[in-house]
């Protein structure tokens, strides 16, 4: 959301050069992949569980703050990342088991208010535990250098690591959903929940798994991005809205749709902020409006 939060601000003087453009392309890729981690969890949870989770952005915030706390205590991001991931699975499992499970059949209004309450509670807990200050998370010293790409242009090594980790996670998610038995059940549960019931599969396990994975993806995104964006109150709010745009454009419940749409939005937002900062705030909403006129079910969603 914020220019400097994504590290683009310092690149502005070099924008008009080829290397400047290259940097923006890599930034777009990195931001887009991060958006994918957040919005894939959202779209999975929508698709399979039929719940709208407004607190998804707060989960991202929790991942970032957890990383900050762990790095402050241990000095190592390599401990913080698995902590965020496993913590996300645990938190997601608990949220599903004790809260969301009871809301699948409730009205949208109840789901909206439940998850709105969670936002308030998460943010207030964060404020009680860590306070309301901005904090930065140091990039690990081993990665605190730049890799030369072409003559006169180099790119931060840590950003490459983020891109790499995101790609690995995205690939793992694809394989899990498309190639494993659990994935087949999840796809079936999204399309025909009554068939999953008829086959004698316990839907509760499917629901808990999907919610835990979605939550873990959001926390991991927060953890990965903490050294790049620093951590601050309500940092998930803006990302929640952008992830909604990603899901709307990608099509509800579609993982591959979320992937391409996240890269598209990441590119438009990053390039917009770099080359047309006055218009960039509106660009993604205009795109969403056009997509809604043209294909209300999203670019990659099923036609109805």
């Amino acid at each position, binding site marked *: 959301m914020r220019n400097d939060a994504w590290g683009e601000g310092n690149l502005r003087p070099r924008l008009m050069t080829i290397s400047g453009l290259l940097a923006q392309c890599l930034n777009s890729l990195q931001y887009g992949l991060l958006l994918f981690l957040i919005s894939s969890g959202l779209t999975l949870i929508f698709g399979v569980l039929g719940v709208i989770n407004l607190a998804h952005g707060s989960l991202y915030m929790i991942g970032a703050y957890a990383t900050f706390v762990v790095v402050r205590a241990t000095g190592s991001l390599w401990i913080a990342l698995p902590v965020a991931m496993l913590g996300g699975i645990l938190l997601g499992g608990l949220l599903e088991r004790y809260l969301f499970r009871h809301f699948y059949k409730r009205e*949208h209004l109840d789901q909206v208010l439940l998850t709105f309450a969670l936002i308030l509670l998460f943010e207030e807990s964060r404020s009680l535990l860590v306070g309301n200050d901005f904090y930065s998370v140091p990039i690990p010293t081993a990665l605190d250098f730049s890799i030369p790409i072409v003559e006169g242009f180099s790119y931060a090594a840590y950003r490459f690591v983020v891109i790499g980790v995101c790609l690995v996670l995205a690939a793992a998610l694809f394989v899990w959903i498309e190639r494993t038995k659990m994935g087949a059940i999840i796809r079936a549960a999204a399309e025909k929940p009554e068939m999953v019931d008829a086959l004698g599969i316990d839907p509760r396990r499917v629901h808990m798994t999907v919610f835990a994975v979605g939550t873990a993806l959001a926390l991991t995104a927060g953890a990965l991005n903490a050294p790049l964006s620093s951590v601050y109150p309500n940092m998930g709010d803006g990302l929640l809205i952008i992830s909604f745009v990603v899901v709307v454009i990608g099509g509800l419940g579609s993982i591959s749709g979320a992937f391409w749409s996240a890269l598209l939005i990441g590119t438009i937002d990053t390039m917009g902020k770099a080359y047309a900062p006055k218009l960039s705030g509106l660009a993604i909403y205009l795109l969403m409006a056009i997509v809604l006129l043209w294909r209300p079910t999203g670019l990659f969603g099923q036609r109805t």
Partner: protein
Amino acid sequence: MIDVGNQTRLLPHSTAGWLALVAFAIFWAILPWFVPLYYIELGTSAMIAAMLALSMQLLVGATGLVSLGHGAFYGLAAYAVYLVSPENAAQPIWITLPIAMAVAGLAALAVGMFSLRTSGFFFLMVTLAFGQMIFFVFHDTKLGGGTDGAYLGKPLISAFGATLDLPRRQKPIGIYYVALIQLLSMYIGLAVLLRTLFGRALEGIRVNEHRMRAVGFDTFKIKLTAFTLAGALAGAAGHMWALHRGFVNPEIVGWHQSAEALLMILLGGLGSLHGPILGALALTGLSEVSQLLTERKLLVEGLVILAVVILLPKGLAGIRVRKDHAADGADHG
């Protein structure tokens, strides 16, 4: 669920119910004689919240549309007042109110044209996204003072060339009555509207939109009309905010406004037109008390919402908006 005879679901079903509403209105009308100035101003804030929730009830309770962009029209109207009357150029209310309502209504028309092409989750997300777009316009540009907000000249209470010029200490009382008159007009206007064919059509869309389309109603047009009207009414509430506070900041455009209005509707009950008013008064009172007791107002609010949605699955009033009919057969466990 479905009406029998000439009654309208959201309105009181008995003479006693109507009399209770009239008694309540009279109570609010004489309240300023008995309470200190601070509570008069608090009452005005509560009535503004009630107007916002009431305008939203036209979407949620009457039509079954849950929008998260409604607060943006409210905030947009307050900014419209700011733009036509900067700090040193107060305008009369008969100019600012129509402008604020028109701006909010037009914005709602534009947003509705896109977002009503979707339904369910998509509608929630799209209204939220467009609402935030309006938020970012005021947050990121200098149009309305940026992130810090700006002071504005409160509209002058005037009609037919005569301006009500109260001494400073009595101004809040004047504003209180302007809010009360607007709230009452909005309630009466909506009550009349719900009794017309248009109101019945909204009820039909809420219960079963497919069937309404099958019998020949252009449901998109009807929903768009309701969405636009609700936006304009939210604009009246936003105008009242500007008149009451004389200040705008991006926060009043944000989507938390919409969520709080939804909470008021849920607290007061989805099944009646006066429910949101009671919910707004209850929430304003609650947040006042929690502010006295603790620093953590939002924590209290979060816990209250959690308690309401968990412990009162049927809501306070019992009658609820139905979810997608597709979910009826499937058992999600």
